[in-house]
Structure formats: C-alpha cells, structure tokens
C-alpha cells in the first residue's frame, strides 16, 4: 500500500518536486533542440526519463551534503540549485557558464552548492566521494557524500576499491546507482555477472536496497532513510534506483539496441505524468495549477537559452588561466 503523499511531505514540498522534475525535463529537451541547431556541441548525454532519481534523492539529502555524479548530470546540478542559465551557458561554451565554458556538459561543478562535480571517466567519482567523506569526518563536519553513478560503472576497479575503502574506514558515503539498464548499448545482463546490482555490496558488508527510480516519492523516502542511516552510523549505504533513459546514450546514439516495445513499457511509467496524476488524485493540486508551474519552468528555460545565446565567448587569455593556483 503506497503512503498518501501528505503523510510524506507538506504540499509545498510535493509541488516543488514536480517543478524540479519538470524543469529538468524541459531543460534536457531544449538542450536536444539547441544541439541540433549547433549551439551545443561535443558530447551531450540527456537525463529525460530519470528525473525522479535526481529530484527524489536530492530532496532526501541535506544542503551541506556533497553530491558527485557522472556525465549525465545537468539535472543533479540544477536540482541542487545551479541556475539553469549558467548551466545552459556552460553547454554553449560561454564565459558566463558555471565553469567559465571550460568544462562543458560533462563537467559541471559548484562548490558553493556542495555540488562537487560531473566526472566523465566511468567510475572516477567513487574514490573522490570517499575522500570528501573522509575530509568531512576529519574536520568534524556534519555531512555525508552522495555519489551518483550508472549501472555501467559497477564493473570498474574503483567501484570495488571504493566500496571496500568506505566500509573499512567507516566513512559516510551514500552510493546511489542509477540503473537505467544500459551502459551505452550494452544491457546490464551482458556486462554484469550479477545483474541485481544492489546485491553486489554483500562482499563489503554494506547494506543496500533497490528502489523504483521512476517514482520520485519512493526515491525520496529511500534516500532520506539511507542518508539518516549514514549520518547516524558514519558508515556507507547503497541504493539501486531502477530507471530508464528515454533517449539514447548521447545525442549521437539513436538507441537501436532497444525495442520499441521495451521503450513503450517504460514510457508508460514516465515519472512526470504519473506523479502529476497522483498529485491531482490526492487533492494536492489541480491540472490548472500544475500548468502554471509548467509555464514557469518553460519560461526559466527560455530565459536560460536566451542568456546563453547572448553571453560572450571566453577571452583567448582564459586558455592559460586556472591551471595552477
């Protein structure tokens, strides 16, 4: 029996989750459009379909907790508080971007938000998360490190090294696997001997659980519980959120390795309309009120694109800046 929404969060918070998911989807779809126009170049990995994970998980964390992610991280940055206009400007390669146009889509970062980076070498963020958690404990800070990664990352050496290390040193790391079932075009059961990813932590005696990553409330509750456990015990915890990306791995990928039937099954589980339906059914809001939110989100993203278009390119001198302190 699903819990009634009002028993989980106040109305305002419930609506905020919807707004965050909607702005994330809108942002990604506009990115795709800007990519086809040639305004965004390089690699572009879109998050459409996975919004419930970033939004639910971020809501379950404290503002001081560190967040690290991989290269499909626009939504994680925006949900944590990065201005969509500065993220869009980064994707355009403009000087006003969140990393001055030096990082691009895969390398968003803002330490003032404790958003400690998008990393584009699969599995690179595992040990860095462990190190941040160690620094937090060493300095006596009340915060944990939340490390997001995909199903493809769990066969890297750093995954196993970092799980072992976090448990050995008893560090507050929350591992969040976004299992969208495909590492580019290779399905989980074709790359992992044990495809049930959350069970892989038993070798390190790290508690884990699997959650429906298409349900923002389920993700929120699981992460909130896990984050409290991590904070309380000072030890790692592991969540596997099963989800699906509605687009290919990147804009260069037409995703021909997935069947239309499979896509349709997941599309029917789209976290946005399903959550909207629930909000209305439980009397939290109305269709009309949601449309006000949606219009606001579209406006935010319109403004982000305009800001990015009108922003200046980096100066040539910037190429030599920020290498050394």
């Amino acid at each position, binding site marked *: 029996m699903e819990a009634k929404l009002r028993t989980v969060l106040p109305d305002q918070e419930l609506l905020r989750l919807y707004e965050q998911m909607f702005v994330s989807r809108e942002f990604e779809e506009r990115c795709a459009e800007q990519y086809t126009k040639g305004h965004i170049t390089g690699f572009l990995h879109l998050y459409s379909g996975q919004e419930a994970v970033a939004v639910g998980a971020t809501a379950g964390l404290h503002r001081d907790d560190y967040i690290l992610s991989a290269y499909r991280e626009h939504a994680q940055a925006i949900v944590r508080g990065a201005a969509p206009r500065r993220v869009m400007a980064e994707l355009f390669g403009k000087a006003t971007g969140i990393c001055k146009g030096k990082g691009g889509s895969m*390398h968003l970062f803002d*330490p003032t938000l404790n958003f400690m980076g998008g990393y584009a070498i699969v599995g690179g963020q595992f*040990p860095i998360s462990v*190190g*941040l958690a160690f*620094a937090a404990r060493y300095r006596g800070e009340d915060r944990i490190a939340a490390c997001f990664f995909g199903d493809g990352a769990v066969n890297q050496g750093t995954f196993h090294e970092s799980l072992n290390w976090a448990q050995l040193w008893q560090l507050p790391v929350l591992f969040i696997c976004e299992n969208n079932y495909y590492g580019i075009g290779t399905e989980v059961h074709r790359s992992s001997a044990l495809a049930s990813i959350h069970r892989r932590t038993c070798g390190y005696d790290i508690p884990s659980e699997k959650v429906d990553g298409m349900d923002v409330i389920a993700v929120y509750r699981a992460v909130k519980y896990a984050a409290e456990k991590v904070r309380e015990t000072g030890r790692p915890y592991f969540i596997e959120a099963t989800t699906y990306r509605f687009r290919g791995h990147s804009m260069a990928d037409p995703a021909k390795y997935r069947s239309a039937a499979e896509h349709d099954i997941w599309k029917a589980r789209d976290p946005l309309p399903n959550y909207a339906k629930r909000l209305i059914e439980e009397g939290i809001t109305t269709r009309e009120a949601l449309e006000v939110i949606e219009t606001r989100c579209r406006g935010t993203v319109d403004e982000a694109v305009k800001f990015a278009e009108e922003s200046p390119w980096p100066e040539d001198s910037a190429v030599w800046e920020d290498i050394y*302190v």
Partner: protein
Amino acid sequence: MSEMTYRDALNQALKEEMRRDASVFVLGEDVALYEGSFKVTRGLLAEFGEERVKDTPISENTIIGVSIGAAMGGLRPVAELMTVNFALLAMDQIVNHMAKIRYMFGGQTFLPMTIRMPGGGGSQLGAQHSQSLETYFMHCPGMYVLYPATPGDAKGLLKSAIRNNNPVIFLEHELLYNSKGEVSDDPEYLVPIGKAEVKRPGEHVTIVAYARMTVLALQVAEELAEEGVSCEVVDLRSLAPLDEETILDSVRKTGRAVVVEECWRTCGLGGEITSRIYEHCFDILKAPVIRVSGLDVPMPYSRKIEMLCIPQPATIRQAVTDVMSGAY
C-alpha cells in the same frame, strides 16, 4: 645545519609539516604500522595517531582518488605510492582527474596534495620495479614534478610541496635514501618549486642532471677537474615547472652541454631539454648537445647487464670528454 640521510630529511619534513598544520595527513600502503616500505614515515603513527597516519588497501588508483577528494574537502593529503611503478595503476586518477579538476571546473577549486613515489633503478629489482617514469608526469600539465638529489633539497622541497596549493608529484630515488648531506634545522627552510640549482660552478661544459644523476655528475665533475676540465653541474630539482632560465644561462656561459637522464631516451626529458637548448642557444654552441640516457629496454635483473641500462659515471665522463674534444 645537521648531517643526515635523505630518508631522515624526508621524515623530518613530514613531521615538521604535520606539526605545523593539522590539515596535513599521510596515507598509503604500509605507511602507518609498518612505517613505510623505505621507512620514510617512521615514527609518524606514534606521534600523530590513527586519523592522521592512514594505512590503505592496495588500491593505488583509489589512494589518489581519496587524496583528491580529501584535498577538495579542505585537507592537505600526502599520499605515498610504494614505488613509482605502481603509479601506473593510478594514472587515471592522476592524469584524468587530479591534473584536470581545477581547470575543467573553471578554477573553482584547488588540490593541495602531494604524492610521494620512490623510484629509479639499480637495485636488481627487475623490469617491473626499476622504472624511471619522471617524463610520464612531466608531459601532463596541471601538476608539478619534483625530484631532489640531496638530503637538504629533499627536506626543503617536500616542505614546499606540502605547503603548495597545487598537486605535486614528489619523486624520491631509492638509491639515495641512505646518502648523507647537510640539512637545515630551520623549520621554515623551503626550497622553491621551479628553481634549478647550480650545484657546482664551472666554465667548459654544462652537465644538466637531476636526482641520482646529479650525484653521479658531481663525481664526474670532481674527477675531470683534476684533468683540467671545468664542469658546471645544473641540478634541475624541479622537473615541472622546468627552470629553463638556469639551464640556458649556464649553457650560454659554457657553450657546451651534456644532459643526463635516468629514464628511457626516446621522448625522455633529455630530448626536451636538448631541444630547448638548441632553440635558444644554437648560435653560441661550440659542440652538439649530447644526451646520456637509460637504455630503451625493459630493465634486466642480472647485475652485469642492469648496469648497462643506467647511466654510470664512466658514460657521463665519456660524454663530457666527447663534447670537449668534438669526437661525437
């Protein structure tokens, strides 16, 4: 000043910096209870305790990744990789992460971290434990590379590395750990990063060297002085940033250069330095620059043939004689 070994000088630097700054901590394989494979971390666990002197699993890539995270989180990690050879397991975190993070994140963070790595050949440890990989690190922007030749520089450079706000690769030569020299007692004695030192002034030929090669070059210079050849020995100390000015000033004075490198010759740092000498001093050179290098082979075990692979005083001496006589 006190006389002490290269090992003890490094140990003293670690202790002084850990006393000075509570954010400095040490991690690595066998650095705590075992006090380090080369005993550089002797006494640290007893003085600073479990949270600041950390034994780690044998997970080199993660040792560096954890150091990166800790540095980003406000600490000043000093990681020990048991030998430079094992750094190859950590090249992803070193090159793809450590050296890139500040730049690709638009200067919003910095990584005040040091990675110590014993290295070099000559102990009959075979192909996998005898490499000189300094050039691998020099090639990549975003980090500094230091390699001291003397106990005094070892201490002063390590202290500078730990205090520096950039990532530093700190190489230590395994055959120098027992070498002795004068070391400053001043806890504020720092050797600047990016500054080579003329370890012996001379007039006829410049020998550019680093680490153990500097020690050999100084021996050769001493011998040749008795035969009337005056060698100026430039000890690089800092491989990145490279102190081009000190090298070129010396070559402009002597008009001749021999560059000694322990690493492999092909694409080695000797080729880089030689090229810079040609670019800037072509007109005043009295003879072509000669490189003395490690042989381009995997290191053999047997003493007799291992010796052939590493520059020896005799090979350096021959190179200097050749440059002086024009017999190259």
